[in-house]
């Protein structure tokens, strides 16, 4: 079970990274106007 001493701290670091990624997504406006982005692919330009 020694591997837990590596995996648990690793999971903590990962969790902190994900929090940062969520912040990045929020500030890039990823959670606003959700439908608009979904329809972008259908839009000919």
């Amino acid at each position, binding site marked *: *079970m020694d591997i837990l001493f590596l995996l*648990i701290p690793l999971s903590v670091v990962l*969790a902190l990274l994900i929090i940062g990624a969520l912040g990045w997504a*929020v500030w890039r406006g990823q959670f606003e*106007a959700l439908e*608009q982005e979904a*329809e972008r692919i259908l*839009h000919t330009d």
Partner: protein
Amino acid sequence: MSTAPPSVLGNLGAMQASPSLLPTGSMPPAPGHAAAWAALDEPAEWEGFSRPVAGREGWWESYLAIDGMHCAACALTVEEVLNNLPGVEAVHVNGVTATARLQWRPQATRPSAWMAAVRKAGYGALPAGDLMLAGRRMQAQRVMLWRWLVAGFCMMQVMMYAAPAYLASAGEITPDIQALLGWASWVLTLPVLLFSCWPFFSAALRDVRQLRIGMDVPVALGVLIAFGASTAATFDPGSPWGGYASYDAVPMFVFFLLSGRLLEQRLRDRTAGALEALMRRLPDSVERQDADGSFRAVAVRRLVAGDLIRVLPGQAFPADGAVETGESRVDQSLLTGESRPLLRRVGDGVIAGSHNLTSVLLVRVQRVGPQTRYAEIVALMEQASVEKPGLVQLVDRIASPFLIAVLLASAAAAVWWWPFGPAHAMAVAVSVLIVTCPCALSLATPAAMLAGAGALARGGVLVRKLQALESCAGIDTVVFDKTGTLTEDRMDVIMAHTPVGVNRDEACDMAGALARHSLHPVSRAIAARFPAPGWVASEVEEVAGRGLRGKVARLDGSGQQYLWLGSASFCGAPVPGRGAPLLQAHLSDGEHYLAGFELDEAIRPDAARAVSSLLELGIRVQLLSGDTGQAVAHLARRAGIEWCFAECKPEVKLEHVRRLQREGHRVMMVGDGMNDGPVLAVADVSMAMGEAVPLAQAKADFIMTGNRLLTVPALLVQARRTRTIVRQNLLWAAIYNAACVPLAIVGYMPIWLAGFGMAASSLLVVANSARLARLAPEQ
């Protein structure tokens, strides 16, 4: 690709010179729009809707409100159109809020070019300075969302670390692994505590500094105690807190709480949306006539009374004024609740913030800026929304002793449970702190009343005092004033009769053609009732106080006659005796009597329906008037009112309302707000017609902005619904607290459940109130 050739749009000169670039068809005359937009090209105007981009020399960032977007695809189209313009970058169009943000370089492009491009794509664009403020609010929303996401994610992760402790049997997890899990949980709870909980801590700190006790104090205290106990348990397993390392409770509780606040904020934003839509209606620039007679675009804030402005179809009126040339339909729905487009002819008034729909109007400006009715309405709505009605004040008074009781109860619970282990005692105390939130209690009334008042404002009733909405629900008698309230300020032909042998239609048309030449109320009524398009009158002269005479003929000149229209003696023809009490006018050709008209005050078209709706609601309807008995009785019959009182002087009206009140009735008085101030003041609830007086001076609790009497029953229905919902909310809050506090004190309420219960409870109250955001359908 691009819907607009960039080479042309980029060149401002070409755009102004070429009207063909602008949409044709139903939107005449196109060059006017270009001129209006050209005003925005003045660097002095940029500050209104743009600001320089920090760190990007020579670039500006602007905000536009986009009209006519219905779906996400529309937003993409607009974005593409703007992106294809030279000198425009970083375009972001939000389909939900109908706004656009873009960066641009003055060397390469001008605001008028984007406006034209957006319009060519089939949408409307308005520069929106207020969106710069909205940008700040959006930032606040983003921080809130991030706090919520951090709490949610940490909650899941911490729960995973906690799971082994729940699943494993005693001794299965070695102490070093247990300590490792504890530290990992501690590290991930820290962001929740420091970042997600910050709003609670800062609010609690503010309360404590001002020696008050607010709703966030117990929450902050609960979080701190739970986290402190868990920390002690993790880093000093030998301490008395040894058994209490339940980190999973804190993030979970915070997550529920933030979820509640987030949803509450969204619901409230939707209610506030109506007010904001109202505030954004004024255009930024307008075409004003210069001394040389040509029209030039100027900023709205430079307008003064007396200016002549040109308002194109699709534009909003920037100021109050009177139509000088043209005839068009206007949409005043947001300001008065009147949903049908209204016809506006020469001489009619138009109000700032309403929209011109069908054709070009030249308007003489009468009032600008804060004097407009639009500004008055916005100010009144703002004022009413910050005022606290009596029930709210009562709840506020209760809330603080209630919170102190909560703190004492949780301390008492901690003391009681202390012998069973400090860790358990702490857990109970924290649950008590968290579960008994007076949030639901203090939201119960204002949430419902604001939602109710917002819906009324959209339906044509301004609520000046939220307090009155409360008393309005108990009304059992509605007293109407007559002149200007049940009736309009004009006459109406209610009967036309002709002697045997005279062509009735022809006689009426001839009277109408003659009456067109006079401004006397009787003539106006006859001309309005019989427009007589096929007839003209000439050589018309008016004899003051008696009547009109002149030549009347068909358009082709045939059938010419010299006619008299006026009082019986003026006409000079024998008038058949009719004992009607009403005002009469007669038409004759000097020898023969041709037609007679009976006129009465014009009753508002929805008066009878309003009265019957009120009667259906079980309300007594009365009519008070200073007018003579016959006229009042006649009008009461037409409106369907059973009780009427004529020849009432103001003090008699006052005494009448007081007597009703002494008999135990709760009286609502509906008047024009001008002559009946004292009666309005003495009635339990008062409502004034918004047409007659400046709104700020009207001494009434409610103001009817659209002069539609049907809003009276609608108001009473809405007030009753509001009362029902406030009662439901208060009842729920009371039941919730009565049930949960004892459960928490006896230790049956884990911390996470306490947090969930509290968030769900306030959410339920807000969602219940949101049902009031729409008026009940009119019967």
